[in-house]
């Protein structure tokens, strides 16, 4: 018995060891930071060039988007045979932790995704980000002039450029045209109209707004817009900067109350805190809710699920009594930073220039339907109507309110966002939430004084 068992165990172990031989080789490859790339003999012209390895970290591992990045990397490596790019992708939530972990290590990516605003500034202040200003300004600003202002500006800090945008995203309400027509409704322009539309659906027994807040950035994007509309522009900017934030303006409480009202009036689907954004979105695709708050970057998924027609969108409705600037959008560019410790910064920048050249900007639009930050790309790409409309909407706006959670200090966001779940649950009020935010803002200020 025992012998047989030992034999079995030994056998299993041997099998396991052999089974891994196949994987060991590729597995060790990414771990060897400086593993020299094999120069194909065919590329004689490049034979003298030193092999270069770049690490590239982005945040789109989804099967809808990742192939575009893989193809980009592939084609860049074909054009530059001496360059090997190791691409990694981590999703929206994991990348927030992963970036912090990996940036301090020897496995630090040369080119990495970061949200604009405080999220990127945090890394800039730590001295781990390369200043891209000279590269943007080279040749009379040749590279700089290819980007929309709304793409570059949020990545500026202290008058320097730190990030290169790949797309400019914004948040809008999409709606089911058939349901709207059925109830004789049109896209609302003001908050009161919006409430009326929602009430109409509510009365008809249809969920007015699909909403999934299992990850509380979903609620945070509502608050991003409502804060912008309710709080005077300058006050908000002062508050969002971690050295001066106080958050005492009454507009914040009002913004939260208006958001909470949507929930309390039954305008959202039930179980918002355990429903994920994508679950709720699926329900909207299936016609179970009338409206949904999502980003331009998700338009292609809608087109794929329910077709190019049958749905429309409108920006967050204006609030006439709000003290913020009118005609602002909720949104931000998504883009990449270059590591200050990169061994090959020139190559990293060359890769970014390749990523944002017109050809790839057009491909970005055609392949995955993203609003490229490159000027003229949408026109050149013969983009679908829904994307043109979305980008025009962006162009017509006077400004953008960056995602709240990546625009304020992480410790404040870490109190604020979980608080939004509690707010929806009814365990705290808007006032209490803002008191917590004020308290943590003060603590953060004190920390850095």
């Amino acid at each position, binding site marked *: 018995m*025992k012998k047989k*068992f*030992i034999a*079995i*165990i030994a056998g*299993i*172990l041997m099998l*396991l*060891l052999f*089974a*891994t031989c*196949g*994987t*060991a080789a*590729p*597995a*060790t490859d*990414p*771990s060897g*930071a400086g593993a020299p790339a094999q120069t194909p003999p065919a590329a004689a012209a490049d034979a003298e060039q030193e092999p270069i390895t770049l690490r590239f970290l982005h945040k789109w*591992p*989804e*099967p*809808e988007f*990742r192939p575009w990045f893989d193809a980009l990397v592939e084609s860049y490596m074909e054009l530059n045979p001496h360059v090997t790019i*190791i691409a*990694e*992708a*981590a*999703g*929206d*939530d*994991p990348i927030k932790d*992963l970036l912090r*972990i*990996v940036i*301090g*290590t*020897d*496995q630090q990516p040369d080119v990495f995704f970061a949200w604009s605003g405080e999220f990127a500034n945090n890394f800039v202040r730590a001295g781990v980000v390369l200043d891209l200003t000279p590269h943007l300004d080279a040749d009379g600003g040749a590279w700089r002039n290819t980007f929309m202002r709304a793409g570059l500006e949020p990545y500026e800090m202290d008058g320097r450029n730190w990030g290169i945008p790949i797309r400019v995203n914004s948040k809008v309400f999409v709606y089911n045209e058939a349901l709207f027509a059925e109830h004789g409704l049109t896209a609302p322009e003001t908050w009161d109209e919006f409430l009326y539309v929602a009430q109409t659906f509510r009365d008809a027994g249809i969920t007015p707004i699909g909403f999934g807040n299992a990850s509380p950035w979903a609620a945070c994007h509502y608050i991003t817009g409502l804060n912008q509309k309710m709080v005077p522009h300058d006050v908000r900017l002062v508050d969002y900067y971690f050295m001066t934030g106080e958050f005492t303006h009454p507009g914040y409480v009002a913004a939260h109350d208006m958001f909470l009202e949507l929930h309390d009036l039954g305008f959202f689907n039930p179980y918002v805190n355990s429903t*994920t*954004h*994508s679950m709720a*979105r*699926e*329900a909207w695709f*299936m016609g179970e809710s009338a409206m949904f708050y999502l980003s331009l970057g998700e338009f292609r*998924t809608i087109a794929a699920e329910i077709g190019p027609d049958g749905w429309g969108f409108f920006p967050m409705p204006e609030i006439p009594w709000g003290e913020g600037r009118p005609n602002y959008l909720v949104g931000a560019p998504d883009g990449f930073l270059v590591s200050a410790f990169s061994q090959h910064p020139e190559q990293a920048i060359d890769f970014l220039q390749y990523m944002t050249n017109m050809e790839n900007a057009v491909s970005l639009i055609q392949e995955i339907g993203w609003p490229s930050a490159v000027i003229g790309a949408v026109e050149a790409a013969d983009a679908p109507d829904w994307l043109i409309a979305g980008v025009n909407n962006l162009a017509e706006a006077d400004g953008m309110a960056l995602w709240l959670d990546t625009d304020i200090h992480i410790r404040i966001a870490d109190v604020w966002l979980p608080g939004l779940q509690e707010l929806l649950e009814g365990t705290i009020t808007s006032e209490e939430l803002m008191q917590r935010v004020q308290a943590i803002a003060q603590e953060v200020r004190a920390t850095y004084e």
Partner: protein
Amino acid sequence: MKKISPAALIIKIVVLTLLFIYALTIIYPLIWMVIQGFRTNREFFSDTWGMPQVWVYQNYIDAWNFGIRTYFMNSVFVTATSVVLTVITSSLLAFFLTRYSFKISKLLLVFVLGGMMLSPQISVISLFQLLQTMNLYNTHWALIIPYVAFRIPFITFLMRGYFLGMPREIEEAAFIDGCSSFGIFLRVVLPIARPIIATSALLAAMTFWNEFMFGLVFIESDSLRTIPVGLMNLRGTLVTRWTTLIAGLALSAIPIIMVFLACQKQLVRGLTAGGVKG
């Protein structure tokens, strides 16, 4: 033996029913998982109880290709290597602790066994620092070495108990025949200790296979991830494809359940010998 009275029979039936219901609450979610893996997203959302209208094998193929294959191989490699290293180092250590008496031996014993009380969770941040300075971060060794180090105290403890109970006569005979101490360890002690080695290997393998936190913090590359962390990653990747994700869950669970069913007896014996998990 007395005959079963009607009252006893009723009790028997009631208790059996309860036991069976409890068994169902364990088995059903697992079966549900396997079945949902064959359905489409839409089917899943419209009726979570239902059977697939068409059995979609594609979910399983996709889940395998989207990552489970890589994660599985990584888990196998990390687990197997860690187990081998744990068994080697621990048996040597236990051999030393039971066969030699130095002045510091008692101290060493306390030192090793004291390690059992230290939780890996407490050290995750400093270990991260340490691995980073050793240039091990984001390699499989960043998992293997800490896994082994944190398992040594317990496995040594298990083996020490066994080694102490072994009859010394054979060792003495081997010594007289001219065997070196290492020879005795290799040719006498280890063969006799096979049951405890198997037990230790199984216990260690179970811990390593399911370990989550180190895998989360010490590995960055998707191509190096082990199953538990890889699944979390898949959840982020397949945000819109629940049934593919569920297929991935099933694919990760089935092999380990098969292994369990195959060497249940040994595992049970091992667990009871240890009395400690995790």
